[in-house]
């Protein structure tokens, strides 16, 4: 995958002067003295394509991204989904300890990372493996923790990508701090913080978005509302009209988007990123989507949701939707689609192969990075383990 997405360049303030104040049109024709002006989301999620791929009337607030960006979006979604199904397959073969699939959320996973630059920072959760490979990170690196190794695989500093975060919502505060620190040092970095619907109930979501708002830190908080937190439905997380209505309570402009409409996701995220980069502070986006697979391979989703519900969402498949649209627009044809499918297969084959090589992990490396230098206590413990390993080897030799 290439690493300088089109959408990013398009959304860059270098090519487009930043708006001077929140660019969002006041919802529902409120007077400008309305204190909520520019902060509330639109009542309906932004949608640019119908579920069947038919384009909706063009709109001024969210212009359609250029064809090249959409083509790239499609390509990465196809490769991303193939990566995802391959990863799920690897769990069955015991090559991965656990895998949280994002199948069905491709528009969000790929659209979001396409909206930021390589120098922007991404704060993913455990669910964002697809987003990370879309960002160009080696899939074996992305799966390192999940295959049972003790570290996150990629180099976060080099990739501008935090380790996939498991303690829910904690990454929201990190994103605020990072974004503020970057701005403090004169860089125009944007931080993109992923978070799930369930995790918005955590205190750290509140504290993270509030810090970002108070310090006007350039963070885009991107909620993938996939309707479940493991088994718990959204109705147990909030009584709000929708999660995007949380923004106004922090003075943060917010939007909701059809998360299975790849064109809309890219358009809304591009605008949110632009807002943040222009120094206007954080932005909250809620994408309505659906997790097609169980929470992870270890989960049994039949306990809490029925197949009919899943089927409804199968009909809103983001890849098919974009494919139909791009065919209509003649951005894609059979040959291009086949070529992309082939790329995806090759990507999966390569991953499969490389994941079958069991990594060599030196047990003594456990002591290397607890501190910059091991403490005397750790040095002692390292010697203990070294002796145990030697004894093991010797007894194996003798046995």
């Amino acid at each position, binding site marked *: 995958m290439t690493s300088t997405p089109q959408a990013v360049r398009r959304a860059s303030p270098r090519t487009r002067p930043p708006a001077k104040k929140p660019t969002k049109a006041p919802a529902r024709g409120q007077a400008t003295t309305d204190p909520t002006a520019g902060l509330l989301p639109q009542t309906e999620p932004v949608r640019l394509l119908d579920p069947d791929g038919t384009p909706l009337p063009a709109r001024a607030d969210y212009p359609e991204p250029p064809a090249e960006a959409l083509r790239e979006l499609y390509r990465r979604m196809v490769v991303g989904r193939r990566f995802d199904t391959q990863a799920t397959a690897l769990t069955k073969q015991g090559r991965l*300890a*656990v895998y949280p699939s994002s199948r069905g959320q491709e528009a969000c996973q790929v659209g979001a990372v396409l909206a930021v630059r390589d120098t922007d920072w991404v704060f993913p959760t455990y669910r964002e493996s697809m987003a990370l490979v879309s960002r160009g990170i080696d899939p074996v690196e992305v799966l390192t*923790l*999940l295959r*049972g*190794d*003790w570290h996150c695989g990629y180099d976060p500093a080099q990739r501008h990508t935090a380790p996939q975060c*498991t*303690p*829910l919502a904690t990454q929201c505060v990190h994103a605020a701090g990072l974004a503020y620190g970057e701005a403090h040092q004169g860089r125009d970095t944007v931080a993109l913080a992923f978070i799930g619907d*369930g*995790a918005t*109930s*955590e*205190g*750290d979501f509140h504290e993270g978005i509030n810090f970002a708002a108070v310090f006007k830190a350039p963070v885009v908080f991107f909620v993938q509302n996939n309707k479940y*937190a*493991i*088994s*718990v439905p959204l109705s*147990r*997380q*909030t009584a709000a009209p929708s999660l995007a209505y949380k923004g106004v309570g922090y003075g943060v402009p917010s939007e909701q988007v059809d998360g299975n409409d790849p064109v809309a996701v890219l358009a809304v995220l591009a605008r949110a990123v632009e807002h943040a980069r222009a120094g206007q502070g954080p932005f909250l986006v809620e994408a309505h989507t659906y997790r097609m697979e169980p929470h992870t391979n270890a989960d*049994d989703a039949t*306990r*809490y949701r029925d197949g009919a519900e899943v089927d409804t969402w199968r009909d809103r498949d983001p890849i098919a939707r974009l494919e139909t649209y791009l065919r209509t627009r003649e951005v894609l044809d059979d040959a291009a689609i086949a070529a992309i499918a082939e790329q995806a297969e090759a990507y999966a084959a390569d991953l499969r192969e490389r994941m079958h090589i069991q*990594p060599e*992990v030196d*047990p003594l490396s*456990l*002591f290397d990075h*607890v501190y910059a230098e091991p*403490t005397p*206590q*750790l040095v002692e*413990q390292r010697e*203990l*383990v070294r002796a*145990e390993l030697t*004894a*093991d080897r010797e007894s194996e030799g003798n046995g």
Partner: protein
Amino acid sequence: MGATTMAKALNAALADALADDERVLVFGEDVGKLGGVFRITDGLQARFGDRRCFDTPLAEAGIVGFAVGLAMSGMRPVVEMQFDAFAYPAFEQIASHVAKLRNRTRGALSVPMVIRVPYAGGIGGVEHHCDSSEAYYAHTPGLKVVTPATVDDAYSLLREAIADPDPVVFMEPKKLYFSSAEAELPTRTEPFGRAVVRRPGRDATLIAYGPAVPVALEAAEAAREEGWDLEVVDVRTIVPLDDATIAASVRRTGRCVVIQEAQGFAGVGAEIAARVQERCFHALHAPVLRVSGLDIPYPAPMLEHTHLPGVDRVLDTVARLQWDDRPDPRWLAQGSAA
């Protein structure tokens, strides 16, 4: 009578408590339809309805704080923290309220509740899913801290925890969830505050709790080959601790190894070792030694066997109990270096 797993025993304890006392409420993340990620609450919502067993918003401080309020209204909340490290967001509620409300109100308000924490490793879990967090709670006055190692204890201690007038942090060793044993439920084992000798022995005492108990028993078995007859004490309730049983055992054997799965530094094992040498000094032929997890973040599956105190590490340590009544050479170099 039949084989039951610890998971099933815990489930039965919850069900029986719900049936016996309508003040009992079970709630947390995914405890409803799903029955919990470890299925400890399996079937409870179906049987008792979603007023008695229900899912909450995903927020651990919220869950524990909500339980505080419910306890104030006269209920008996039993909450599940999904994994050890995911109880940390609730730490302020636990340390500053759950532990202290009785004291702050001279007993006018008590907050009887059970905070169930699946803890420790050995299940190939990824990071944050295998922390041994018992010491944080044990160091906090006002909390009782309980951890079963057998199927019978799982049932009995959980029932006792729910009935207890004080808040109990109930630490469930994940790797033992699917351990099984013959058990006839309901069952009643020794009450809180009583350690149990799980295996009598004459040469040295192994003191363990929770996930370390099976390791201790296995080590004791293996030690027979080396000619050592080891006693194994299961602590069961870390707070209150049974000093009497522990000290009596060590006075009999004269040697002691404390085993815990948690990282060693300032853990529960340190407390036990410190107490044992205070109380049994003249009976000891060797220092009280400790076997524990390493002082590192819990490692991922590939390396967890290196971290976890296993039979070999226990036996190596037993070997260092100065059987020849000569000082441990290990510390001599350091002494002279200093």
